[in-house]
């Protein structure tokens, strides 16, 4: 495999991974606080729609992002209400949110734009464009590192960098702050937090809200950050579930989440390059079978190298004091 191909693969890896990563971190905050969230998909979808819709209407990607986040937060609030306040089944609530998002986005999009449940295409003014990092061109000639910096690291939208930045930030918040300590505690043993005089519900709502925020950014990225430019119905295409898988893969840890998502992104990038298989192994894989590749590889790695994943102990269970 030649050097350019590798660079391209890595470049694609990063782009593909970043919405997954944001969603995965969203799930991480929520599940670390003991709230399972299979509604990542729905929250991303709603944000994708609102972000694109408002970016189009206002001409500002940033305003779009804000509204997208607000939409995702609203769904988070529903999830919180169901699973925290009313101690409902978190999985059902997530399923309902996914349904709701899939339906509402199209209905409203059609109402507003009359373009068949899509938003109009965004021009470059109203979407997040690629940023060339400082010195990218100057460093390019440097062997190995130069092209990696200029081609792989540089030249993504701010949301990709936000996703990458979210990893250390999440790690820092979770493991270096009071809030993080309490949040992790509430996912392990809410009674410990309660008897320490801290409100379990408030913490969990906060966690769910952070999940909303991150899903909001992820959704906006899918619809308003280059190369994307607009909303198409169901455009999350199962990424919420993949993010969930990555979260388990990563055993609910931020850095591992980064690697898991990058790995998945890499497999997807590889899937787009059947020529590599032909060149390397002289192997022509039928395209339908090729698309199973990321999933097969994931299972193999999971079975071969990743041990048992122990979820947060209080995960999925509503905190009930009195039976």
């Amino acid at each position: 495999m030649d050097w350019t191909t590798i660079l391209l693969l890595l470049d694609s890896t990063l782009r593909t991974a970043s919405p997954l990563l944001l969603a995965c971190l969203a799930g991480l905050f929520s599940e670390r606080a003991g709230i399972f969230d299979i509604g990542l998909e729905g929250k991303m979808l709603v944000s994708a729609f609102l972000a694109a819709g408002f970016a189009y209407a206002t001409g500002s990607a940033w305003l779009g992002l804000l509204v997208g986040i607000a939409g995702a937060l609203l769904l988070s609030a529903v999830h919180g209400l169901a699973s925290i306040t009313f101690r409902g089944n978190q999985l059902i609530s997530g399923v309902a949110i996914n349904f709701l998002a899939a339906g509402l986005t199209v209905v409203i999009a059609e109402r507003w734009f009359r373009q068949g449940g899509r938003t109009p295409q965004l021009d470059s003014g109203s979407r997040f464009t690629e940023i060339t990092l400082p010195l990218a061109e100057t460093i390019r000639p440097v062997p190995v590192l130069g092209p990696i910096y200029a081609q792989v690291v540089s030249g993504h939208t701010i949301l990709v960098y936000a996703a990458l930045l979210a990893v250390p930030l999440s790690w820092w918040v979770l493991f270096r702050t009071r809030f993080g300590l309490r949040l992790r505690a509430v996912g392990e043993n809410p009674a410990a937090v309660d008897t320490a005089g801290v409100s379990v519900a408030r913490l969990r709502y906060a966690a769910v809200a952070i999940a909303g925020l991150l899903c909001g950014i992820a959704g906006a990225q899918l619809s308003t950050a280059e190369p994307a430019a607009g909303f198409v119905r169901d455009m999350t295409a199962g990424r919420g579930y993949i993010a969930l898988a990555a979260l388990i893969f990563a055993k609910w840890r931020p850095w591992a989440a980064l690697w898991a998502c990058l790995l998945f992104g890499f497999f997807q990038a590889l899937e787009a390059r059947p020529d590599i298989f032909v060149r390397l192994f002289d192997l022509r894989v039928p395209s339908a079978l090729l698309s199973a590749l990321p999933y097969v590889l994931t299972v193999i790695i999971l079975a071969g190298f990743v041990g048992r994943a122990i979820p947060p102990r209080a995960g999925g269970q509503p905190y009930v004091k009195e039976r």
Partner: protein
Amino acid sequence: EGPAVIFDLGGKFDKSFNESAYNGAQRWAEETGQSYAEFELTAEAQREQAIRRFAEQGYSPIIMVGFMSATPLSQIAPEYPETKFVIVDAVVDAPNVRSVVFNEHEGSYLVGMLAAMASESGTVGFIGGMDIPLIRKFACGYAQGVKAVNPDATIIANFTGTTPAAWNDPARGSELTLAQIGQGADVVYAAAGGTGVGVLQTAADNDILSIGVDSNQNYLHPGEVLTSMVKRVDNAVYEAMAAGADVETGVVVMGVANDGVGYALDEHNASLITEEMKAAVDAAAAQIASGELVVHDYMTDETCPALTF
């Protein structure tokens, strides 16, 4: 009771043949001021249900788009001999059925020629939604067109996925486009429904050319969409509706010859299509129309001389 339209599972806004059919129906409704009934399938079981329902309520013609309705329709059509049915994209052999099929391979051949002529790198791309026979038909015609102009050209073909989500994943479309650009492609042809939105966008962003599909998508990125392979499902629907209950039955082949398929040329891409290009393609179109030039149809033997799947 007037005409009825049954849209296939992708829904009437699939940026593909359903949407095209919808546009044709809307055009008829606006022009005549009449209304029509419609149904968007959400489950396989509704195919029969919808056909029967409309037939029983007296609608005629009942127009359905999508090859998957062929088998159910072939069973139901004889039960309602008074009703006229129109099926788009498949052939059903029954006296009261009008089957409209398109020579997508011919249209794709033409845009393939344009792609090869516009390409400077000699590498062009194709992005399909799912790897299904219909899309292979597109790809195969396209590849033949490319090779006709430049026998040494490289054609890269990718498919988005294997679940229905593949038709609505513009992000994946973008990624595939970038991967093809990475391999040197400077023209990409998208036959992937909503996913194509991402393909065209990414092509425009990266200053390469793209080719739209089904309807004329040149306007999406003026000056950056080389052309669109138009498949006039809208016309087929419009005509059927206009003919009403007296619509002629039998097989209607919409090809280059009768403008059922073709390439789009308008103010948005005029600057991209040079006179020679236009001349060459129009010549080929004429040859196809006259039968002088036969573009191999993947469906005849399920192989493709210009591309392996």
